[in-house]
């Protein structure tokens, strides 16, 4: 069902002016304001064809929600299918609520990343909170108990007057929801850049653990099942949210507040426990959360995925607002609700569990053989809509074109730039830059330890979780007597060794300069961080944040980014098992975001006790560079800060060398030869050598010296994403380390020594550790000086 490029006139269609190519198939009265529903003329015409008449507002509302970019992925699905999604670890790939990968033969991991950008820009606290709530529901819908959250945040320029407000509210919202749910927020990333001044990004990731033989799907409805509504009552919040999120912002942003949902993590915590308990007792046939487009998407998608239909009685829906129309009810995005299909004979038991947790549990319909949704309202048949046509919306191969700005991206030529005179001051500016500096001001507001699995939390390059038997059966919560407690944790602490490693990445500046390389780098950078802990990359999820797909230049960025992710993910054997696309991240007259394809990666380590971090441990240890340097400053923070010019081609990555390099590093860590490892990311080698001293808890420093023929000091110190790691080790291990690297075909060179108190580099940088530490830890907090919210 693909409409070709030619037939799609995006901008004109939206305004409703272009009716030259009116179809001859049906009469079009055109008295519906389809543009108000976010539909194009072509789409409206198609709906007329399907209904064989002009749709009324209810029908149009349902179609427009399901055909919104947010629900239908209409601009991207033909490209997304190119992403690698198969592999030996994959149990369920894209298409369900979340992806599922093999863990230990008995348990599986369920994870996904999702955006909540538009709501967070309108109402940052509620937007961020419900983003976190929504992704956690996606995970426990599948029968998995969430064990960790990450979030990837993008805010405007650090000095933009609204940045402190957005940062403060978003962080508060994430903490509010995650903390109350009892799911630790173990890591993430926060980046400030002017391109997000008018479109912040809030991407939330959750990973959960489930028994392999107890994964729940939305595709298992059987004829005659009760359709059961559980959770919060339906209100007027978030109505049309999916449609809102499928358009750019304009000056009417202020009016969009009612499209943002309001979250109640307390209810979701109850919903989590009740759902897992009902799943444990096998009372649920099929389940889907009411996320974007609420009851509409859950009922239609469950029906479509199961090849069935439903009768839905609108009179039965629990409501918390008066005067709601059936369309309001169907489009409400009130949070903390689930749709369940349940065998008739098991309903009473199901209801008992939800009542125990003080939650609504109501039969609102029945699964039918006919592939339609039949609505009943005021005890009478109201509407009947075809499932397949509503769910399978249009798909576009939108035109793409190389952006004009690409021709301004030059090769980096050092001779065109003068070396800075004062390296000390550059070093201080880099280390205290908000994109480099400590984010402890932020992550201290998240409970990152609950669950008692967090071995490395936020502030480390990766989160490391130990695995222990999580499956304390929910019903044990109801046992009043010790003797009743037969189920529960059964792990022996001595066996708690295998670990899960998580992190997310995306340098959007690099993606802007070269979306192919930038997206590839996002995958590689995730893998580097996992390898630097000693772990092996296993799988990824993606959250693809772009501006309007109706702009061919943006579409080009998107396609290039997909190509980059694909090439890297194939090489690393890390399939994309789930994902999310957020488009229209632009504001009329105020610019577009850089392409921001955020990647979150999951890795494993056999023995979590062997995982290391980037911090130096002891005075007298040797510091080595493992790998090679290119000296390409293109796109670096250094170029932006010092020369106010970052429009140069980023470095090219030799991916086969990269695989060898990371494998060598993992081998060294597995052999317990290293005390620390850090990759070279933003801020370059200088940051990679200094940060481990700053992060150490003994006021350590480092003296380093490294020279390369043909590379100036600024190129050595500040070029980014080099194919190299900074590692430290006890000097007595030197011979073994050199041997190992040599056998792996990887260059290694001693570049320094861990000392006390001072950071020295090539005799051009000399800083007191204490002072630089103070700047590193206070930079973000300074944003809030004299400001209250």
């Amino acid at each position, binding site marked *: 069902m693909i409409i070709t490029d030619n037939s799609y006139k995006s901008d004109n269609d939206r305004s409703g002016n272009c009716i030259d190519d009116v179809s001859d198939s049906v009469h079009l009265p055109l008295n519906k304001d389809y543009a108000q529903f976010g539909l194009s003329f072509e789409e409206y015409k198609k709906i007329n064809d399907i209904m064989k008449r002009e749709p009324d507002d209810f029908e149009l509302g349902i179609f427009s929600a399901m055909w919104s970019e947010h629900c239908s992925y209409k601009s991207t699905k033909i490209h997304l299918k190119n992403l690698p999604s198969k592999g030996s670890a994959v149990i369920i790939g894209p298409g369900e609520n979340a992806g599922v990968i093999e863990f230990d033969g008995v348990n599986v991991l369920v994870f996904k990343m999702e955006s909540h950008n538009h709501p967070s820009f309108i109402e940052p606290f509620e937007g961020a909170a419900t983003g976190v709530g929504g992704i956690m529901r996606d995970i426990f819908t599948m029968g998995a108990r969430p064990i960790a959250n990450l979030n990837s945040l993008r805010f405007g320029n650090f000095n933009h007057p609204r940045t402190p407000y957005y940062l403060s509210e978003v962080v508060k919202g994430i903490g509010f929801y995650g903390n109350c749910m009892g799911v630790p927020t173990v890591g993430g990333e926060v980046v400030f850049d002017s391109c997000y001044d008018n479109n912040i990004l809030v991407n939330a990731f959750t990973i959960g653990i489930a028994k392999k033989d107890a994964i729940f799907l939305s595709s298992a409805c059987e004829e005659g099942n009760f359709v059961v509504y559980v959770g919060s009552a339906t209100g007027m919040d978030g109505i049309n949210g999916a449609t809102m999120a499928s358009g750019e912002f304009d000056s009417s942003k202020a009016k969009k507040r009612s499209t943002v949902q309001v979250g109640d993590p*307390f209810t979701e915590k109850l919903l989590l426990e009740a759902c897992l308990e009902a799943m444990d007792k096998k009372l649920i046939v099929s389940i889907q959360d009411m996320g974007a487009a609420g009851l509409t998407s859950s009922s239609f998608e469950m029906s479509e995925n199961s090849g069935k239909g439903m009768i839905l009685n609108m009179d039965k829906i629990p409501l918390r607002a008066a005067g709601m129309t059936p369309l309001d009810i169907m489009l409400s995005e009130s949070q903390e609700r689930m749709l369940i299909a349940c065998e008739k004979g098991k309903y009473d038991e199901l209801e008992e569990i939800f009542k125990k947790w003080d939650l609504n549990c109501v039969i609102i319909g029945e699964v039918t053989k006919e592939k339609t949704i039949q609505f009943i309202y005021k005890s009478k048949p109201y509407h009947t809509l075809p499932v397949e046509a509503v769910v399978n919306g249009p798909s576009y191969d939108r035109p793409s074109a190389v952006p004009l700005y690409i021709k301004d991206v030059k090769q980096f030529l050092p001779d065109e730039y003068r070396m800075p005179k004062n390296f000390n001051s550059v070093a201080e500016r880099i280390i205290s830059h908000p994109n480099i500096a400590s984010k402890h001001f932020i992550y201290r*507001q998240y*409970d990152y*330890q609950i669950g*008692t699995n967090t*071995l490395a939390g936020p502030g480390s390059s990766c989160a490391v979780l130990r695995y222990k038997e999580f499956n*304390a059966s929910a019903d044990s919560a109801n046992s009043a007597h010790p003797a009743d407690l037969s189920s529960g944790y059964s792990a*022996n602490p001595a066996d708690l060794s295998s670990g899960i490693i998580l992190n997310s990445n995306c340098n959007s500046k690099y993606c802007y300069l070269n979306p192919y390389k930038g997206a590839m780098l996002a995958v590689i950078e995730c893998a580097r961080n996992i390898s630097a802990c000693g772990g092996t990359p296993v799988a990824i999820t993606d959250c693809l944040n772009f501006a309007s797909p109706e702009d061919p230049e943006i579409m080009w960025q998107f396609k290039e980014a997909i190509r980059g992710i694909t090439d890297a993910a194939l090489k690393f054997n890390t399939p994309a098992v789930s994902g999310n696309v957020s488009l229209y991240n632009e504001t009329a007259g105020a610019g577009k975001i850089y392409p921001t394809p955020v990647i979150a990666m999951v890795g494993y380590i056999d023995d979590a006790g062997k995982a290391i971090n980037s911090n130096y441990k002891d005075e007298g240890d040797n510091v080595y560079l493992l790998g090679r340097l290119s000296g390409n400053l293109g796109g670096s923070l250094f170029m932006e800060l010092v020369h106010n010019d970052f429009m140069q081609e980023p470095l090219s990555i030799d991916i086969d060398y990269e695989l060898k390099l990371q494998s060598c590093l993992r081998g060294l860590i597995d052999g317990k030869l290293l005390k620390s490892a850090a990759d070279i990311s933003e801020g370059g080698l200088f940051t990679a050598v200094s940060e481990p001293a700053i992060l150490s808890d003994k006021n350590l420093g480092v003296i380093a010296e490294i020279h390369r023929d043909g590379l100036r000091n600024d190129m050595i110190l500040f070029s980014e994403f080099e194919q190299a790691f900074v590692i430290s080790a006890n000097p007595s291990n030197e011979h073994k380390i050199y041997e190992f690297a040599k056998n792996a075909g990887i260059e290694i060179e001693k570049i320094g020594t861990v000392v006390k108190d001072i950071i020295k580099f090539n005799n051009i940088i000399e800083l007191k550790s204490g002072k630089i530490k103070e700047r590193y830890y206070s930079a973000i907090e300074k944003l809030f000086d004299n400001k209250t919210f």
Partner: protein
Amino acid sequence: MSIGLNLMENKKINAGITVFPGSNCDMDVYYALKDVFNLNVSFLWHKDEFHNFKNYDFIVIPGGFSYGDYLRAGALAARSRVMKSIKEYADGGGIVLGICNGFQILLESGLLKGAMLTNKSLKFECRDVYIKNISGNNFNKNNNSNNNKSGNNNNRENPFTCLIEKDAVLKLPIAHHDGNYFAENNELEDLFSSGHVAFQYCNEDGAVSDDSNPNGSLKNIGGLFGENFNVMGLMPHPERASEKILGSDDGAKIFNSIIYYIKNK
């Protein structure tokens, strides 16, 4: 200190953990007590009263957001059925440890004096902190007789710190939004003079200062005993620091004290 003392014998000790809607550290406490300390552990559901007090050697009220922390943290939980029983249990000498939200619930139910305000930063605070044991007497480890029960005010035996040296510094994590302890001036003086303050926030070296106060608590109070020393509220989370792999096992000292006390009482 080795964890768990005699783990096989621990199996005879029965611990109860309350579960309110919104409790979220219940599983962590359960895991620590059952799998780290090898106790016999069960849950107490908020809707149920219980009267079989003999079935519980001690009860933990775990952290979380009971009833969503609506109204005030701990206020609704304090009025639940299970708390009605726990008050009777505590009045009869039963050992009750309230952690984080559990501390707030104990305050709201009147088993502890004072109240919790929002953190001075007005933010949720999660990080490792240091607390100092300022409670008196250690249970005499070399002498299992009860001859030290008659100590003076500053020399009380209690189940929670009996294996912890006086002035010992523990590293434990906090994670709360409302941990800013408050009591009236005269009340505060009484609490100190009668030995009811268990732990104060301090720095790594044990110095009690504003710098080491994570939430603005009066006098850096982080842990408090109830009137008869059989109830303790503790803001940091010992269950998150009961194994070396988690960065600290200082929390085990508190659980081991309770276990030791029960075995030797």
